[in-house]
């Protein structure tokens, strides 16, 4: 699971009000090279919840992102590279996503988060 996906997900257990962001429990993080696409990154920058993104990258052991970001930073190659790396190249291979409200763990196995709810959570 890449941080792009993480940034889009929330816990949707019935009754949960603030299911975002899910806390990352990282057991195994891998890096996979992805070709950079500037246009795609610029589009995604507008969609990403930055604070959750920075926290998630730290939970994955990556500390190169600034606390705050604004669109003008996209002109810097260094920033774009770091953003690209954190958004698309860091993979949570094994671990879990934890609901911030209930503590329910959504397991991540072989890079795929299992967001399916149990019968009593629907």
């Amino acid at each position: 699971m890449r941080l792009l996906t993480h940034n889009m997900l929330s816990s949707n257990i019935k009754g949960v009000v603030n299911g975002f962001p899910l806390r990352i429990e990282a057991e195994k993080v891998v890096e996979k090279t992805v070709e950079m696409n500037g246009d795609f990154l610029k589009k995604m920058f507008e969609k990403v919840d930055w604070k959750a993104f920075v926290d998630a990258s730290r939970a994955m052991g990556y500390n190169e992102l600034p606390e705050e970001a604004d669109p003008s930073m996209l002109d810097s190659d260094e920033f774009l590279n770091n953003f690209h790396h954190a958004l698309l190249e860091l993979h949570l291979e094994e671990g879990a996503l934890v609901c911030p409200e209930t503590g329910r763990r959504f397991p991540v196995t072989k890079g795929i988060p299992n967001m399916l709810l149990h019968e009593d959570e629907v």
Partner: protein
Amino acid sequence: MWYLCVFYHRLLDYRKPEVESLAQLFGGIEDPQNGEVPFQLQWKLPLHYHTDSPFHFVNLPSEQLALNIATRSILVKGMYELWGEGSSYEELKESVLSYPDERKLPYLNSDSTFKITVDSFGKVISLEEQKELIQGLSYIPFKGRVKLRNPDHNFWLIEVDNYGGNNGLPPIVQKRIFFGREVGGADRKLIPTYQLKSRNYLGPTAMDAEMAFLMANQALATSGKLVYDPFVGTGSILVAAAHFGAMTMGADIDIRVVRDGRGPDCNVWSNFKQYGLPMPVGLLRADNNLPPWRPTLKEVFDAIICDPPYGVRAGGRKSGGRKLLKGAVEPYTVPDDKRTDHIPSTAPYSLVECVHDLLDLAAKMLVMGGRLVFFYPVLREDDFAETHFPEHPCFKLISSAEQILSSRYSRVLLTMVKMGPYTEEIAEVARIKHIEFKENHAKWLEDGNLHSAVFSPADAQLTEAGDLKLIKDPKPKYRGKYV
């Protein structure tokens, strides 16, 4: 300029929408905003030709656009700059001679290579005849060198006639001969490369390669776009989108499909690896009925492409399972010590509900002008009309292309464009519209009805009066398995 556009004689409904979508993709034409008329190309037919014929004329602003469309398409056999046409070879000669020299001479000069291909539709022309026909073109001052492999310029002489037999089309009223210079044609090699029988990991409803590419074209999949499939299965649709350079994301409720596969190199990931394509940016196990997207997230996908489970070959499932058997069984509470490895039971997911959820998700998550491309089943004895298709206030239906699957049912590829922003009010209007749709049009969409309509024995088709109801066939049948 008008180009002669010759199609492969298959998937007739899909041909023009594909060219129009690609014209939009390469022509930089924006999808229309609310109230505007959707973009359409100008088409015309050769004299007396039936609209199902493979021969069409299309008006395009530039040759570059014609080339881009033809090269990326799946169903365009060739796009040609027409130098002449006629109902006899004499007429063709006159027509070619009167075509302006400044359009012809640049392609005839002595330092270029060329090739002439003789083609026909519905008949094989023998090599001797072909040679004769080519020699008959001596009135064109070809100065270049003949080269049969990768020449600079490809010329085509295409003859169409009513050859007496049934060539699989309504009879040709008049013989027509075309001569033109090829601008471009589809790369059909893609299809054997990606054919399902060479795919490592397959599911029972994997989308065949040709259709997957057509869907990706309808969705305008290209580099820098994010494409989502909420019923990703083995990834067969996303593979096509990834081939065209799009970033892909998929979800499925069935973990066996998404994650485990049949081993380390036989799963959804390996289906991308096999072709050297970039992996999906995200795969997750999730329920389309209860999508786990963060509530503040919207307008993030450029296209949603899918083949929803409509219960004929594969039935849909959603979360809830035993909880939804109201009254019959006590709601199930998972014991705390079993929660980690608990496999939740699922409940049937009717097509009506599935389509509603899909439209709602697409309305929220697609960017403005983004496209929703999905298959929708149609029972063929119903009167085939646009009103049968689901609607949503945010979307405009821009094309519907039928593929007949059996005498009883077909599937229609719907392409919708997001024209208006998603709001709470719209969601409510859509919900009401959806209920009307459900009540008025589509009783068979309910759980199991479609399945039984497709698979029940013929006797079930008897009407109340006891007459065998003849299934109307609104479309003419043509020769060939895939047409």
